[in-house]
């Protein structure tokens, strides 16, 4: 079966042009392989600068990769002509981190939700508005808000507008780029719940980009962890939370406030290596790094189907104590979520 979206050896480097000096180039993403089946949700986790947003933009064809390729239903995105690319925006959509910036501050929200139908000429003005009104109901926006401008809406309501607009053309793949991180904690859970229910009813695949593992636990089928543009670990969400194989993943889990993981699991406050050359990129910050890590880049190892890892010293299989930690972490996530929902 062909996956819906597939990235092969995907790379992206930024060039900084300098006057009368050699240009600098910086690898934002380096040889990423990923694939998503229809209806599946993959979370991409990483710190800022890990290249996760670039990855999302390249999967949608907004940014062109400088190496490797992205294919949609088996077809290379770069082979789409202008008209086909426009057609493609009906299928591939995006929800942004900052809903205030993603909306026209001056226009009534219903017009903005209806706009994709008009752009793609899928409906006339009247029909587009009535379908936008239906969509508002689906995303939980009360009808009286229809003619307000985004300024008069709360942050959560604005993000619902952005989600509504993204779903108007019935997309098959949606990238959520830090879709809840700009929102108040109390609103985050509501929006996450909305996304989960929309996904069940709408049947779209999604890529959930975030730096916050708590968010991931709630929505993702699978998790991919990026560090400085490289994939360090990938696997089913349950396994990643229960038994992180990579010290970096474990460190991210340990960084969740209230985590039962020991302090020793956290990263050292070392310098972040920007030039990824020989050796593991994490070596200066890793709690389990050895001499080998500084010499040799660890290869990507397939542990099990859908379970990949890049580390010379993968963490041992979960001991009973670690399992306790997993349960505690999971419990923490759920308790936070339920608090949010009650608030």
């Amino acid at each position: 079966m062909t996956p819906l979206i597939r990235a092969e050896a995907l790379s992206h480097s930024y060039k900084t042009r300098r006057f009368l000096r050699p240009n600098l180039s910086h690898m934002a993403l380096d040889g990423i392989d990923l694939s998503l089946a229809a209806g599946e949700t993959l979370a991409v986790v990483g710190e800022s600068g890990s290249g996760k947003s670039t990855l999302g933009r390249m999967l949608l064809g907004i940014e062109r990769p400088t190496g490797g390729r992205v294919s949609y239903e088996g077809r290379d995105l770069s082979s789409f002509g202008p008209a086909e690319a426009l057609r493609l925006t009906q299928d591939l959509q995006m929800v942004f981190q900052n809903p205030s910036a993603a909306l026209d501050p001056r226009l009534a929200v219903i017009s903005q939700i209806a706009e994709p139908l008009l752009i793609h000429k899928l409906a006339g003005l009247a029909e587009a508005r009535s379908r936008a009104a239906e969509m508002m109901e689906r995303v939980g926006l009360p009808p009286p808000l229809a003619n307000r401008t985004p300024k008069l809406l709360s942050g959560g309501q604005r993000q619902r507008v952005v989600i509504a607009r993204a779903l108007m053309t019935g997309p098959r793949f949606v990238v959520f780029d830090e879709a809840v991180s700009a929102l108040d904690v109390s609103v985050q859970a509501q929006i996450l719940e909305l996304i989960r229910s929309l996904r069940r009813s709408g049947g779209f695949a999604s890529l959930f980009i975030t730096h916050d593992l708590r968010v991931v636990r709630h929505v993702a089928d699978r998790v991919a962890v990026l560090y400085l543009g490289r994939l360090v670990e990938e696997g089913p969400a349950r396994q990643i939370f229960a038994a992180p194989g990579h010290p970096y993943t474990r460190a991210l889990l340990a960084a969740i406030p209230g985590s039962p993981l020991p302090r020793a699991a956290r990263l050292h406050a070392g310098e972040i290596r920007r030039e990824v050359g020989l050796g593991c990129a994490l070596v200066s910050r890793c709690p389990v790094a050895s001499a080998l890590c500084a010499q040799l880049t660890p290869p990507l190892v397939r542990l099990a189907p859908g379970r990949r890892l890049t580390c010379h010293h993968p963490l041992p299989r979960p001991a009973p104590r670690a399992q306790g930690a997993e349960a505690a972490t999971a419990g923490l996530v759920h308790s936070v979520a339920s608090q949010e929902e009650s608030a």
Partner: protein
Amino acid sequence: MAFSTRAFRQRPVDPSRASAKGQAGLWLRAMLLGPVTATLAKLWLISVLVIAIGAPWLAPWDYTYQQPLLRLSPPALFGGDSPFWLGSDHLGRDTLSRSLYAMRFSLIVAIIGTLTGAAIGILAGMVAARRRGVLGEAIMAAVDIQASLPFLIFAIVVVGVFGKSFWLIVLIIGIAGWERYARLVRGLVLDAETHGYAGALRVVGAGTGRIYLHHVLPNILGVLMVQMTLNFPESILLETSLSFLGLGVQPPMTSLGLMISESRNYIVNAPWMAAVPSLLILLTTLAFVVLGDNIRDRVARD
């Protein structure tokens, strides 16, 4: 540094302190910078607009009508013995009527010129923001070059080479101002593209034309209006300067700059010939500057 004491406290003007110095002081303060000046400025600009539209009906005389026997008559308004409220010029033409027509002409040229500049600048700014390659760089280089040089020189050369015509003057005034709009619009569009709604709309599939016309333009209209308020007095100054140098409108048509130019030889005997158009220029540009300052302050406060 005796005077530094109060400055660092940065206290807003306190009317009660002013009233302690007496009512006159309070009035003076309010008149000099208070909102009263802005109101006066608006009132004056409305009358200017009335003059520009209604000059043919308001003027007591035909502005080209010469009465050789009544040359250089002093203004009747100040005790002169003549049929002219504001005196007559060296050809016996009514200063008031000529001023009204001059005002009308100067204003029309400045308005169309400002709008032309805004149109060119908006278009160039959008192109520069969208096409960041050679074309965009070339536009921004042109902006930088023009901003760094005295434009009057080029205006003089262009008029000298191509001759004097209404539309050439309008175009020159437009070109004098385009670079500010271009810079402004480019910045605003880039902001909307990289951190704002324009980039988001592209993801939904909206094309450049739709985004810029339906979304960006309405959103930046307010800023553009402020810029036009600031640009307009400059347009008037350029038009009057050119016509003062004899490079603007040609007789028998008239403009404020041309009237002042004509008055120069009669400044001893007929100072009103210079005074009336000078006052009109002063009041009009002053009103715009006051209004521009006022709007800018209000925008800065928001």
